C-alpha cells in the first residue's frame, strides 16, 4: 500500500440541526500515516464532523469513503467495527471507572478459556492481564498494576489507558477529541508525546480535534481549519505560522 494513498475521504458533507447549519459541503481527507489537526472556534463544526465519522449521527448529505469503498455508519458500533476508533475528551465516556485496567482494555472483547472439559467458558484473567501489560509497555505507558481500578489513576494515566484500549484493536483511524483539554500541564505533555509516538512509530493515522494551536503545531502533519461549518483552509505547520492559522479560524481579512 502506498503511504500517500487516501485512506479516508469525506465528500460534500452537510448536516443541519433544525435551523442551525452545522456543516456545509465539507470535504475532508486523511492519508495513511498522517496526523491531521482539525481546528476551529466554538461552533465551527469540528465535533459535528467527527461525530458523523464516529457514527453518532448520519450526515444529511455527502458520502464517506474508507479505503476507496463507500461506507454508511448507522451507529457508533458500525464505525468502530470498520476500524474508526474515537477517544473523547472525558475518559468517562470510554472507561468503566471501578474496573481494573485489564478489564477496561478488554471491555467487550474478553478472552475466555474452556472450563469443565469445554462445556463452559470462563474468563482468562491471567492472559488478559499479560496482554494488557504488553499493550501498555509497547506504547510506553507506565502503570504500576493492571489490577488497580481506573478511579485510582490520574487523568493522564486514564487517557493513556483509553489510548491503549484503542490500540489493542489496531484501529485504521484514531480520532482524538480534545484529548488534553481536561489535563494538567505535565500530563498534557505526556499524552501529546504518546500521541506523537503512536502516529510516527506505530504508523496509526490520527485525526486530532483541538483548539490549542500550540499542541497542534507540535504534533500534526497537516492542519484543517473549519469556520461556521465550512472548511476554510488547510496548511502544513512547517509552512504556516500560528498567526496565519488564527486568521483562518477567526476569519478576519
Amino acid at each position, binding site marked *: 500500500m502506498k503511504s500517500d494513498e487516501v485512506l479516508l475521504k469525506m465528500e460534500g458533507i452537510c448536516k443541519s440541526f433544525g435551523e442551525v447549519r452545522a456543516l456545509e459541503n465539507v470535504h475532508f481527507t486523511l492519508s495513511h500515516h498522517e496526523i491531521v489537526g482539525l481546528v476551529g472556534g466554538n461552533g465551527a463544526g469540528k465535533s459535528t464532523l467527527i461525530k458523523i465519522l464516529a457514527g453518532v449521527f448520519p450526515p444529511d448529505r455527502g458520502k464517506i469513503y474508507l479505503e476507496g469503498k463507500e461506507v454508511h455508519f448507522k451507529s*457508533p*458500533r458500525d464505525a*468502530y*467495527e470498520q476500524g474508526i476508533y474515537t477517544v473523547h475528551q472525558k475518559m*468517562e*465516556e*470510554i*472507561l*468503566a*471507572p*471501578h*474496573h481494573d485496567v485489564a*478489564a477496561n482494555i478488554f*471491555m*467487550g*472483547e*474478553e478472552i*475466555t478459556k474452556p*472450563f469443565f472439559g469445554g462445556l*463452559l*467458558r*470462563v*474468563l482468562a484473567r491471567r492472559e488478559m492481564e499479560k496482554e494488557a501489560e504488553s499493550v501498555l509497555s509497547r506504547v510506553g505507558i507506565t502503570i504500576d498494576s493492571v489490577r488497580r*481500578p481506573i*478511579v*485510582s*489513576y*490520574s487523568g493522564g494515566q486514564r487517557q493513556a489507558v483509553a489510548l491503549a*484500549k484503542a490500540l489493542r484493536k489496531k484501529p485504521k483511524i484514531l480520532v482524538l477529541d480534545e484529548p488534553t483539554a481536561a489535563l494538567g500541564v505535565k500530563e498534557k505533555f505526556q499524552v501529546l508525546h504518546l500521541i506523537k509516538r503512536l502516529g510516527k512509530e506505530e504508523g496509526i493515522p490520527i485525526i486530532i480535534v483541538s483548539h490549542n494551536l500550540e499542541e497542534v503545531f507540535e504534533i500534526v502533519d497537516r492542519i484543517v481549519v473549519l469556520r461556521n461549518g465550512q472548511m476554510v483552509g488547510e496548511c502544513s505547520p512547517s509552512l504556516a505560522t500560528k498567526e496565519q492559522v488564527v486568521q483562518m479560524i477567526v476569519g478576519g481579512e
Partner: protein
Amino acid sequence: MRKRELLKFLLDNSVWIIIIVFFTLNAFLTPKFFTLLNFRNILIHSSILGIVVIGESLCLLSGHFDLSVESTLALSAVLGSMAVKNGLAIPLAIGVMLMSGMLVGFANGTLIRKLGLNAFVATLITYIGIRGTALGIVEGKTIWNLPAAFCFFGAGNIGILPVQIVLLAVLYLLFHAVLIYTKFGRHVYLVGDNQLAARISGINVDRVVIAVFMLSGLLSAFAGLVMAGRLNSASPLFGTGMVFEAMSAAIIGGISLRGGIGSLFMALGGVVLLSSISNVLNLHAVSPYWIQTIRALMILFAVTLDSLKRRLVRYEE
C-alpha cells in the same frame, strides 16, 4: 500504603466482620442464640429473602433495580398452586411458575430497554400489575393443602439438611461463579459501571439488561415455590413489602445503587445479618416492629462505609 490496603480489605468485607462481632456478642448476651438449632433457624429464615436478593443484586449491579420481585413471587406461588390443585403434574406446574417469572422479567427488561422507561417506572408498573394479577386469579383467596412433593423445596430435607439451606448455598455459589468467572457476569458489572462505555465497546446492553431482569424474575418465581412449600399454601399477598427488605440486604452488603460495585457474597452477608438481627430481637421478645428502625440504621451505616471506601481508592494528587 499497607495500612490503606488493610483498611480497604476491612471495608470490603465489612458485613461479614460485623456478623462475626454480632455473633460473638450475642453468644454471651442472648441465651439460646449460639446453638446449632438457632443457626439453622437463621439460615432457613434467610433462604427465601436470600434467593430474591440474588436477583435484586443482579439488577443493582447492572445499574438498575427491580421493584416487582415480591409480586412475581406471589404470582408464581398462586399460579403453581392453582395448577397442581387442578391436576397438572408437579414438574409442569413448576415449569409454569418459573416461566411466569421469566415473562415478568422479560416485560421489565423490554419496557426499560426497548420503550426507554426508567427502571423505577417500568418495575413499578409490574410491581402493581403483577400483584393485581395474582390477587385477581384467586380473587384474593389463599390456596391451602398442597401436595407434599410440591412442598419439597420449602419444607423437605436432604439428609439432615433442610432443602432451603442447601438451595441457598447452591444458588449463591452458582450465581457468584457466573458473576465472577463468566463473560456475561463481567458484562453485568461493566454495564452497571458505565453503560455508555459498555455500549461503545460492543457489549449488547439490551441483551445483558433483559437477561438480568429475566434472571431476577426467575429467582423470584423460584422463591415463590419455596415459600408455598414452607407454608403449605399460596396467598396472593405473599412477600408483601419484601422488595424493601431485599434492597436493604443488598445495600447493607455493599452493593452500590449506582451499579457496577459489590459482590453477591457480601449481599448474602446482608441477608444473614438482617435475619440474625430479627432472630435476636425475637429471642429477647422485642416487638418485631422495631426491626424497621434497626434496618434503617443499618442502611445508613452501610452507605457511610461505602462513601468512605470510595474515597480510599480514588486518585489523589
